[in-house]
């Protein structure tokens, strides 16, 4: 009998300790470190994204936070760049002991911080950077991309061009002279060569990043008269190019394709003519044809407009995706852990392969093989609509990410080379402007 009592007591003690090791105590707050551009030209993306993060966190906390724990944000300015960015990132992870990070906007920043996150064993969501190569060259445990990469983004724009203007013979490119400008053109031109090899590239222009003047490039394009001009520039550079080209008639002479122009539409206002093809780095548009009547979507957009004075642009929606992915991962990990607060490793395990939906676009899946997000792509053409002092998107196509993303384990450029002209014939739903 004595032995039985001792055995029961030992069993209870053991069970208590075992139970403790499986159930983390719930923290008082869930800390998130976010890198975003608060200075420099890319702050056109970074500042709205920060406003969105603050808005989302406030709303999330009002509803009880994630798993009942409020979130707390720390911001790091990507504009500092280089070693300063890495040092600040380490400080936030090691000193402030954040539970997860969202890094970054720039592909250069992602390339720097992804190995650091892996080294520090902190879960990191690449929330906006587009370089496909980051997740193609190495399999990471702690790094996930909660949106698409440059390959489906550029391929969608090209497919839209080929579907709507199939007879063009010549093309020119004017991209910013840095990693994104070069890489996006490599993706676009490789796919173009595979699907429509008869097209002639008449000019490849890469003006300096932040160039204030494109007069000479425009003169050259006016003289060359290409059927199509592609640019994947953004921010002030894109605004300047479009306005200078418009003033001199180039926008009317050639079909312009603005690879990631959605973020400039509101600023360009009436200077943006009708008929330009515009990509959105995902299915992002404040009048998303499948979501525009959704109450939560409308409420978010209107709240953002009230806070910042402008309708949301794609980095805002990308930020919302990172939050939703984190919330989904924690919910899944808590559930798998019997309702107890999960360890960091359990959250990382739960994140691989999740599907999440912000309600602001189609659902996104984090592909478990390489942690790459599969995100739909929205492309449209500019059109004047009464009641708006800027152009809206018309004839919108939304591309299925499973059709236009390279398979896991296959490098983007190698996959693009295998595409055939028939690839253009895929069925894609088309939506009219409101």
């Amino acid at each position, binding site marked *: 009998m004595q032995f039985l009592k001792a055995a029961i007591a030992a069993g209870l003690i053991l069970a208590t300790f075992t139970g403790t090791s499986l159930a983390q105590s719930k923290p008082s707050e869930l800390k998130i470190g976010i890198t975003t551009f608060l200075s420099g030209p890319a702050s*056109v993306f970074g500042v709205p994204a920060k406003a969105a993060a603050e808005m989302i966190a406030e709303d999330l906390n009002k509803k009880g936070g994630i798993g009942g724990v409020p979130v707390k944000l720390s911001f790091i300015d990507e504009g500092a760049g280089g070693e300063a960015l890495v040092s600040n990132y380490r400080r936030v992870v090691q000193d402030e002991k954040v539970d997860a990070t969202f890094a970054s906007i720039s592909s250069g920043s992602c390339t720097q911080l992804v190995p650091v996150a892996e080294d520090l064993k902190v879960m990191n969501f690449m929330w906006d950077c587009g370089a496909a190569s980051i997740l193609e060259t190495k399999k990471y445990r702690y790094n996930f991309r909660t949106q698409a990469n440059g390959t489906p983004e550029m391929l969608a724009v090209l497919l839209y061009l080929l579907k709507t203007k199939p007879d063009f013979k010549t093309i020119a490119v004017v991209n910013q002279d840095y990693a994104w400008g070069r890489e996006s053109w490599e993706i676009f031109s490789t796919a173009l060569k595979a699907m429509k090899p008869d097209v002639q590239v008449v000019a490849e222009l890469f003006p300096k990043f932040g160039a204030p003047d494109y007069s000479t490039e425009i003169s050259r394009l006016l003289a060359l008269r290409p059927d199509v001009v592609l640019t994947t520039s953004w921010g002030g550079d894109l605004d300047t190019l479009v306005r200078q080209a418009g003033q001199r008639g180039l926008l009317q002479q050639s079909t312009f394709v603005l690879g990631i122009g959605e973020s400039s539409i509101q600023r360009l206002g009436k200077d943006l003519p009708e008929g330009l093809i515009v990509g959105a780095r995902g299915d992002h548009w404040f009048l998303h044809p499948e979501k525009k009547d959704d109450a939560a979507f409308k409420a978010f957009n209107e709240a953002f407009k009230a806070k910042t004075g402008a309708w949301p642009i794609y980095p805002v929606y990308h930020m919302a995706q990172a939050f939703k992915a984190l919330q989904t991962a924690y919910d899944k990990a808590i559930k798998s852990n019997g309702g107890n607060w999960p360890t960091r490793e359990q959250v990382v395990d739960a994140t691989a392969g999740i599907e999440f939906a912000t309600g602001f676009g189609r659902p996104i899946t984090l592909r478990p093989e390489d942690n790459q997000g599969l995100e739909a792509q929205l492309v449209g053409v500019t059109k004047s609509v009464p009641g708006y002092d800027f152009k809206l998107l018309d004839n919108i196509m939304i591309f299925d990410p499973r059709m236009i993303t390279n398979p896991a384990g296959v490098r983007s450029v190698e996959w693009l080379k295998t595409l055939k002209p028939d690839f253009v014939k895929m069925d894609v739903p088309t939506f009219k402007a409101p």
Partner: protein
Amino acid sequence: MNSTLAILAILDGISYAALVFLVSVGLSLIFGVLRVVNVAHGSLYAFGAYLAATFSLAIAPISPWLTYPALLAASIVIGVACGGFIERFLLRPLSGQEDVLQLLITFAAFMIMDNLQRLIWGVQPIFAAEPLRLLPNVAVFGVSYTSYQVILLPGVALATLLGLRYFLRRTLSGAVILAVTEDREASTAIGIDAKRVYFVTFVIGASLAALGGALASPTTSLVPGMGADMIVLSFAVAATAGLGQIEGTALTALMIGLTRAFVIYLQPEFEVLVPYLLMVLVLLMRPFGLFGAVQVRKI
């Protein structure tokens, strides 16, 4: 390259050179007289652009033509307020100290102004194209140009060059500035107020930087960081010409503008390199710049 394209390239080169000259000449003038490499020059350019855009956007609804005096007014306001402040309160207390201190203080001013700019005008690109839209386009061999860029900007640049030449060579004030530049001690001994000359020169140089920004504002998007880009280019032009050389700055700006334009037509991948490649080549052969003269050190 056929003759038609060559003429187009020349027009593009002149237009670009005009703007580059307007900004660089202020930097060169300040160095020539005060011997100060003003790193805050880029911020003065940016402030001139932003204030001109603010004035233009405010006044255009009343009369679009008033945007032209608004550009000029913005340059003078920035030149006097910011330039005057920098010279009087930052540079003058360091007068006679090591040159590196003046460099550092203008760098600090640049950093502060860069943040102030973000604070005042935000981070979203601003565009105020009214002055450019008022003038018609002109067609050259079927290629459309804006009169603003191929006529007005080069015209203002030429007027500035001739005006500066006249001012420095034909007026008493100009002679006083040249005297202080030549020998500060001797000119002070004959009763010239060197401090006042420095102040006036710095304000003129700062106003020229702001004028460059103001004239650029109708053609380009105003964004954070625009000052930093311009200061690098201005240094390249001023150093290639020889610091303090007004006419040399004009010729160097033209040389860089034309070379850049031809490179974009022929080998566009070298566009970014052009000003710096020219600077390196020139400085290797003539360390004091294309138009600079060897100076005798006073013991």
